[in-house]
């Protein structure tokens, strides 16, 4: 039984920084839980609290039925994979994998068997007598995984294990991780700031910000039903377009556009006079000159980024952008940030098929799908109406989800 129960975890550092602020979370036996959030949100500190590498200021950590809050890391029956691998440089791969077992007094024959099994599982058989210096980044990462696997703990803790790998290798190791979890079925807590990793690996993911959990749910639910602006903006790449809109006379008004709210049916009644409208870039569709749509907007294209499989189109609208402090952090990593700063309105993004007709400085007409729009309360940031397709046909092709 390796269910993990976090009860009101509080971690405050001596300098007064509260890295984890009252987190309660239950992770089921065998579940793959991802802690995801921007840098500094407290996800790694929370993981270190679970590992026992940081003392919690308040709250309790349960692994199974045991309260391990004050138990040393070595006695928690956990294994951890570190962001920087943390292999022992003076030991061979074999000794690195065997070290934890040796310290725990495992019999020699058992150690040899477990090392061989981990090596076979991760394709490390030919590297067992090499030292970390003679390994590539990907191989070191696999050794770090092997070290954790050989221990056969009740919980795996992984702290951004793929962040030092190049993009191609990351995709491969990510698939390996998913396969390993499928085979081993051990409870895993995985920390990442990369939402693609979170969405692909997680059974459930906890989105964190400011030391608190914003939402815990399956990747699909996080994408389709974000509880607030933060989760909505964080999940999805490029981020959701967020802009202020008014509800007047049965219409939704923003940037000179007036869209009939009767397209939303009874849901329209839930909307207050002022809302934050959220539109995912992949839910905008380009309209031909003779095509019409119930909800459509027109704009001049500012920048086109052709990514091969898809095209990102940036266009300004004369609307008020919604940029709460925490959302600015999220957008900082995106090229959009520079564009937002440009002095021609708020820059929105559309994610269109690869062969989109769009060219720079061209006027573009885009269809919005009423059922795929999100509405948030501008005062609290909470979600009033989440974009939910009534059927799969309603989701624009070819981009049918949050994945790249």
């Amino acid at each position, binding site marked *: 039984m390796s269910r993990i129960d976090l009860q009101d975890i509080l971690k405050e550092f001596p300098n007064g920084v509260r890295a984890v602020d009252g987190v309660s979370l239950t992770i089921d036996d065998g579940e793959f839980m991802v802690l995801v959030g921007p840098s500094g949100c407290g996800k790694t500190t929370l993981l*270190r609290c679970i*590992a*026992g*590498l940081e003392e919690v200021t308040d709250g309790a950590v349960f692994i199974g039925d045991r309260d391990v809050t004050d138990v*040393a*890391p*070595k006695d928690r029956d*956990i*294994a*951890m994979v*570190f*962001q*920087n*691998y*943390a*292999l*022992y*440089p*003076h030991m061979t791969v074999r000794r*690195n994998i065997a*070290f*934890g077992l040796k*310290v*725990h007094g495992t019999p020699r024959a058992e150690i040899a068997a477990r090392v061989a099994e981990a090596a076979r599982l991760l394709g490390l058989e030919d590297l067992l007598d090499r*030292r*970390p*210096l003679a390994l590539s*980044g990907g191989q*070191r990462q696999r050794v770090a995984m092997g*070290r954790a696997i050989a*221990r056969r703990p009740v919980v795996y803790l992984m702290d951004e294990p793929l962040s*030092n790998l190049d993009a191609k290798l990351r995709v491969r190791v990510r698939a390996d991780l998913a396969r390993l979890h499928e085979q081993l079925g051990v409870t895993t807590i995985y920390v990442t700031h990369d939402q693609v990793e979170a969405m692909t690996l997680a059974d459930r993911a906890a989105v964190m910000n400011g030391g608190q959990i914003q939402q815990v749910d399956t990747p699909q639910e996080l994408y389709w039903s974000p509880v607030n602006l933060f989760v909505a903006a964080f999940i999805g790449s490029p981020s959701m377009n967020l802009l202020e809109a008014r509800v007047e006379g049965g219409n939704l008004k923003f940037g000179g556009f007036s869209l009939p709210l009767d397209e939303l049916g009874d849901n329209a009644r839930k909307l207050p006079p002022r809302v934050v409208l959220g539109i995912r870039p992949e839910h905008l569709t380009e309209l031909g000159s003779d095509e019409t749509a119930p909800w459509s907007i027109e704009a001049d294209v500012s920048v086109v980024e052709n990514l091969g499989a898809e095209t990102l189109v940036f266009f300004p609208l004369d609307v008020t952008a919604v940029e709460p402090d925490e959302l600015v952090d999220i957008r900082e990593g995106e090229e959009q940030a520079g564009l937002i700063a440009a002095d021609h309105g708020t820059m929105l993004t559309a994610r269109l098929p690869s062969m989109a007709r769009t060219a720079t400085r061209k006027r573009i007409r885009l269809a919005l799908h009423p059922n795929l729009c999100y509405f948030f309360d501008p005062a609290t940031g909470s979600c009033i109406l989440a974009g939910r397709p009534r059927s799969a046909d309603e989701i624009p092709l070819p981009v049918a989800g949050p994945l790249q």
Partner: protein
Amino acid sequence: MSSLTLPRLRDKSPRRRRRRRSRSWVLGRALVYATVLLLAAAFVVPVLWGFLASLRQHQAGVGGSIVPNPLHWENYSRAWSYPSLSFPHYLKNTVFVTSLATIPTVLTSAMAGFGFARHRARGRNLLFLFMIGTTFVPFAVTFLMSYFLFLQVHLVDTYWPWFLWGLSANAGMIFLFRQFYMNFPRELDDAASIDGCGRLRTFVQIYLPNSTSILAVASIIMGIGWWGDYIWASLLLNNHQTTLSPIIATGYYEPPGSNSFFSVPETLAGAMMYTIPPLLFFFLLQKKLARGIVTTGVKG
């Protein structure tokens, strides 16, 4: 016949630019080398003179020709097997005393440095400052106190003081190790902790094996220091226990017994032999100095 004369292009090739720059570079280098050679000569000339003087006839004094003819290599065998000053015996004593002080000093300093670098404790920085402060107390002050202390506890004429010095570590070395361990990847501590290591095991099995370069540096500094010690060996050890340093400083007399004269060449031959072990020790550890693999297990 007319010929076409092409205008001569100014050569802007990297080779030419390099050559032009290299003239000033050569001048600068020459100046640097001349300074270095001059400084090196200041250190090497006395040793070279000592070596050549050790090959003179054993009655010779300090004067005379610089390069002796013939070379009296027998001075070395005489110095080695001088009847009342058994070189091998005192060499053994010196190796023993040096090891007795150096090995524990290096290990305890490493452990203290590890503690200062990694162990969070109230008053740690204050304690560290106090420890560093002890290095500013003049030797003349501590030396008398230490001597009387050893006299009081009857440790004179024993090797215990060297072992006790070893156990009490060395402030300079502690500082050296602390700085080294502060740059050690913290992830290794965390990994060791998760793997089941306590602090001592982390130090012994993770930190020490990855500290070969700094251990070599500390061993060389402390070892050579203790090898050359004259004062403590003279004060605390009797004639049978003492080390080579006081013996060589006393000098060799020929012929042994009464009516003898001070033999400069044999004394210098003894001094030359006395310098060989630390040189060998240095060359033995020299490879370790350049080795630094501690960050090869982590990325970032």
